[in-house]
């Protein structure tokens, strides 16, 4: 069951992640390494029985064309996984936000 509106912690990522302005503009974009890591995360979730890949694909289509339709297509796995974790109560918004803050600080440390 998916929520009818987006979670604030996810919607905030759009600011620096880049808004979806039209798929054809994406032809100039080179995939980022994090996308492969995200794919592996999704595969591990399916492999270990938490979230079937095909079910995720359907959720990506559903959320990507509705409440998160302003997000770029390449971000769908990440936002759909985040949304589903929140929906299922696996993590809370505060927990996800805190983890993101910690990670950003870690990555920015030289």
């Amino acid at each position, binding site marked *: 069951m998916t929520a009818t509106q987006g979670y604030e912690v996810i919607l905030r990522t759009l600011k620096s992640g880049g808004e979806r302005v039209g798929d054809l503009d994406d032809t*100039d974009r080179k995939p980022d390494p*994090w996308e492969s890591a995200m794919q592996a995360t999704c595969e591990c*979730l399916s492999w270990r029985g938490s979230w079937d890949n095909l079910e995720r694909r359907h959720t990506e289509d559903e959320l990507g064309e509705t409440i998160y339709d302003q997000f770029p297509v390449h971000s769908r796995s990440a936002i759909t996984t985040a949304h589903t974790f929140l929906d299922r109560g*696996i993590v809370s918004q505060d927990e996800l936000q805190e983890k993101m803050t910690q990670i950003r600080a870690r990555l920015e440390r030289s």
Partner: protein
Amino acid sequence: MSDPHKPIQASEEISEFEVLELALRELAIEKGLFSAEDHRRFSEWAESIGPSNGSKMVAKAWTDPEFKKRLLENGTEASKEVGIDWTDPTGTGTPSDYTFFYVLENTPQVHNVIVCTLCSCYPRPVLGMSPDWYRTPNYRRRMVRRPREVLAEFGLHFPSDVEVRVHDSNQKSRFMVMPMRPEGTDGWTEEQLEKIVTRDTMIGVALPSADWDASKAPSAGGGK
């Protein structure tokens, strides 16, 4: 001349999506949904797959007309005969989501080539990781607009009466080219044929040749 050993500069900007990906992965690990070792093993395995499954399918199709028919009619089903189940991705450790898989047959009149204009969709279960150039905007953008020009850059030239068909992969559909069996391979076994069905011939930017096996380093005396 630039120094090839200069240090790699750290990216100036860390994207929110990059942060989100790492956060989700670490939280999933903390919650016990999978382990860090699972993630590392899967990534390592996925990146090590080569094009041998695709080569196997083409070689089998060249020698078995009934398999060829099945492969062209329903690539997803026929793949199972060589051990690839597209509908059960992690069941076979396939690093791809569920998609429809189509095999495109080259003929003397039609040459097929694959691309993904939007991102980097590629038939990974059968061809492994895509080559760097496949993911470049240069290839993706130009292949759909000027395919003959791009193919010529790979050394591939076709007369004007050969139709070049470009197939744009997407989230749901993946393609692979079945090249024509080259001359000089009569009586070859499937194992021998597999070796000359290289990655590039199944993308469509090259043609197989009886004297070329991509597993060997090009030498001054070998190949064309």
